[in-house]
C-alpha cells in the first residue's frame, strides 16, 4: 500500500490486517518503532478528531509530526496553489496526511507527491481511515461485519464518511442496508450504482428500526451546500430520539462519525446502544495501524 486515497485502495484482507494491527496498538499505545520518520498533517479544513488522532498516532509510533490546521499561516493564504504546497511537504516528510475541502484533492496530491498520501477527507468524496475505524468498531461490537443489517440515517448525499463506508461494505456481506433520509439528502447516484448488496431507501425509520443492527447517523453537512437556501430546506429535517432508540434490538448499536449537532437526542448517550465515543476512541489505534502500514518496514 503506497497511498490511501479511497477505501477502494484497500481490500478485505488488508482491512482485516489493519484490524489486527489496531488490536496490537490498542493494547500497546506507546509502541514506537518509527523514530526516523516524519509525518506531515496538511489540514486545509477544520478537524478535531481526525487531525488530533493522526497526530497522536504518529507520536505514539515515535515519528515526528509537523503540519498545519488551517489555510491561514501557510503560503496558501498568499495564493500558493495546492500542488506547490504538496511539493514542499513532500521534501520534508515521509508521509502526508491531508484534509481538503475540494473533491478529489487527495488524488491530485498523490499524483504530485512521491511520498505516500493519506486522505483524511476530501470534500464530499471520501474519508477512508474513518471507514476503517467504523468497521473496526462494528467488528469489535459484533465480532463480525457480514450478515448484519445497517441503517444509515441523515445526510447521505454530502457525508464523505458515509460514502466511504458504503463503498467499504462492498467488500463484506451485509444482510441489508437501509438509507433513511429526506429525498434530497439520499445517496448520490454514482455511489449507489457501485453497491453490490441489497439496499432500500426510505424516509421513516420506524418501519425498519427493529431490524437494524448498526445505525449510522450523520449530521447535515452544512459546509458542502453551495446554496444556503437548499440547506435551510433540510435543516432539522430528521432527528433520532430516545423513543426511537428504545425500539431497537437490545444488541443494536448507534454510531456517528461526529461532530453531532441536533440530529441525536443526547439521552441516547446513556443507553447501551451508544457506540460513538468508543468509535472515536478507536481513531488512534486504527490510524497507528494505517500509518505503520504506510511508513512500512517490519517493526
Amino acid at each position, binding site marked *: 500500500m503506497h497511498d490511501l486515497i479511497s477505501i477502494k485502495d484497500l481490500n478485505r484482507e488488508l482491512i482485516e490486517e489493519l484490524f489486527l494491527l489496531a488490536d496490537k496498538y490498542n493494547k500497546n499505545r506507546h509502541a514506537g518503532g518509527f523514530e526516523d520518520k516524519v509525518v506531515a498533517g496538511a489540514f486545509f479544513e477544520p478537524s478535531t478528531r481526525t487531525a488530533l488522532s493522526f497526530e497522536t498516532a504518529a507520536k505514539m509510533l515515535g515519528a515526528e509530526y509537523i503540519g498545519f490546521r488551517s489555510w491561514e499561516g501557510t503560503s496558501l493564504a498568499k495564493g500558493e496553489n*495546492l500542488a506547490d504546497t504538496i511539493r514542499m511537504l513532500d521534501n520534508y516528510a515521509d508521509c502526508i496526511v491531508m484534509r481538503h475541502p*475540494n473533491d*478529489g*484533492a487527495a488524488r*491530485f496530491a498523490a499524483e504530485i507527491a512521491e511520498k505516500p498520501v493519506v486522505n483524511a477527507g476530501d*470534500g*464530499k468524496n471520501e474519508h477512508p481511515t474513518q471507514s476503517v475505524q467504523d468497521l473496526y468498531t462494528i467488528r469489535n461490537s459484533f465480532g463480525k461485519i457480514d450478515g448484519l443489517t445497517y441503517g444509515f440515517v441523515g445526510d447521505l448525499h454530502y457525508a464523505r464518511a458515509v460514502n466511504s463506508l458504503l463503498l467499504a461494505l462492498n467488500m463484506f456481506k451485509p444482510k441489508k442496508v437501509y438509507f433513511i433520509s429526506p429525498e434530497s439528502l439520499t445517496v448520490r447516484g454514482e455511489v449507489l450504482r457501485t453497491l453490490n448488496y441489497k439496499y432500500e431507501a426510505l424516509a421513516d425509520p420506524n418501519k425498519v428500526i427493529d431490524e437494524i443492527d448498526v445505525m449510522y447517523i450523520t449530521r447535515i453537512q452544512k459546509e458542502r451546500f453551495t446554496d444556503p437556501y437548499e440547506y435551510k430546506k433540510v435543516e432539522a429535517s430528521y432527528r433520532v430520539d430516545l423513543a426511537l432508540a428504545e425500539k431497537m434490538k437490545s444488541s443494536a448499536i448507534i454510531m456517528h462519525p461526529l461532530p453531532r449537532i441536533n440530529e441525536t437526542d443526547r439521552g441516547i448517550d446513556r443507553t447501551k446502544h451508544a457506540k460513538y465515543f468508543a468509535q472515536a476512541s478507536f481513531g488512534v489505534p486504527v490510524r497507528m495501524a494505517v500509518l505503520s502500514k504506510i511508513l512500512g518496514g517490519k517493526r
Partner: protein
Amino acid sequence: MKKGELIVSKIMNGTVIDHIPAGRATVVLGILGIDHTIKNRISMVINAESKSMGKKDIVKIENRELKSEEADTIALVAPEATINIIRNYEVAKKMKIKVPESIARIIKCPNPLCITNNDVEAASRFAVISKNPIILKCEYCGTEIDDRDALNALACG
C-alpha cells in the same frame, strides 16, 4: 447546384472528417485544437445532405494527417464519424474512431468543487465507464456525466 457537384473542392493532402452530426463541426475542430491560428487551410460544411443521417457536417483539414489517438478524442461528439487520410487526391487510409478508455483535459468537470476546477495545475481526467450509452466518471471527484453533459462541459467550448 448540379447533381454530383462538390460543395467544397477535393483536397490534395490531409484529412477529411465525414459523418459528423449536423452542427457539431465547430465542436470537433475545438476538441482537435484547430482554429485560425494554425497555418493549414480548413474547409467546413454544415448541414450537408446525408442519406444515413439526414444532415451532417464535414471538415477538411489540408496538409495534416490526424493520428488515431487524436481521432478518438472526437468520439464523444461524433461517434459515427469516418476519417479519411488523403494523399495526392486519393484516400490513402480510412480510420474508424473508437471511444477511448479515458479522456483528459478536453472536458471540464461540472462539479465546481472538484479539484480540477480549483488548482491551476490540476487537469480534468474522465474514465469512460460505459461506451454505449456514453457515461464518463471524473477520476478525481467521481462525478458521472453522459454525452450530453460532456458536450456542455467541453473545456474548449
